[in-house]
């Protein structure tokens, strides 16, 4: 229970004007704490992709962040439709984003691959009809 900081964010459903706010807010907190800019960038990218997926593919959700001297852990939990085939969803280029979402610039199918690339540990658990939980860690 020593040097850890907990933060949590509510991600509202369907609200593109606010999507990215949790990631932006975490990014500025980390900057203020003096965390290395390369690490801040990794966290910001990984978390944004997860945050936006919660808005596009689920019905919003909750993000819990734990910052310790060793690592930054992000747990993103939603009660959306879940992912039937995680291996398929993880493939670069795979996307079920509808046209109206693609018109905004999403739907390249690179979000989950980015999350894996920019985190040092990545885990995704999902149950169809129940929801999805993504856990990512970035080492300090």
């Amino acid at each position, binding site marked *: 229970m020593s040097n850890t900081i907990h933060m949590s964010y509510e991600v509202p459903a369907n609200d*593109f004007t606010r999507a*990215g706010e949790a990631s932006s807010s975490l990014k500025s907190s980390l900057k203020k704490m003096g965390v290395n800019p390369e690490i801040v960038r990794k966290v910001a990218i990984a978390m944004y992709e997860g945050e936006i997926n919660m808005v596009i593919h689920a019905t919003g959700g909750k993000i819990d962040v734990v910052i310790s001297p060793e690592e930054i852990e992000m747990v993103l939990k939603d009660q959306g439709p879940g992912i039937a085939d995680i291996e398929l969803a993880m493939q670069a280029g795979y996307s079920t984003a509808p046209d109206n979402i693609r018109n905004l610039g999403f739907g390249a199918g*690179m979000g989950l691959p980015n999350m894996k690339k920019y985190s040092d540990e990545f885990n995704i658990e999902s149950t169809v009809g129940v929801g999805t939980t993504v856990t990512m860690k970035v080492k300090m």
Partner: protein
Amino acid sequence: MKVLDLVQDGSFKVLNEGNNLEREIRAPYCCDLLSVAMGRMPADSAWVTVMGNINTLAVATLADAACIILAEGSHLDDPALNKAKQQEITVFETELPIFEAAFIVYQKLHA
């Protein structure tokens, strides 16, 4: 080349002047797919795109772009313009095609 140099130079219309004018631009970067840009855009890029919605600004901020150049005559929609002002992000507009806009930045960097 600093963001300020691009603001003063007049190649592109300045839509919003941000708070990072002293920042050095490293390279132009072109892409309209947000998660591709998010994953591959180098920090301190001048990001040339046609996507002018609020998500463009989020990606620019989170991936550490130096500025945004909206090409092909595309514009920021109102929520995006408000966000640019609020977050003090430098945004330019131009009628030029994406390649030509990026090439102008490239030439200035390599002059």
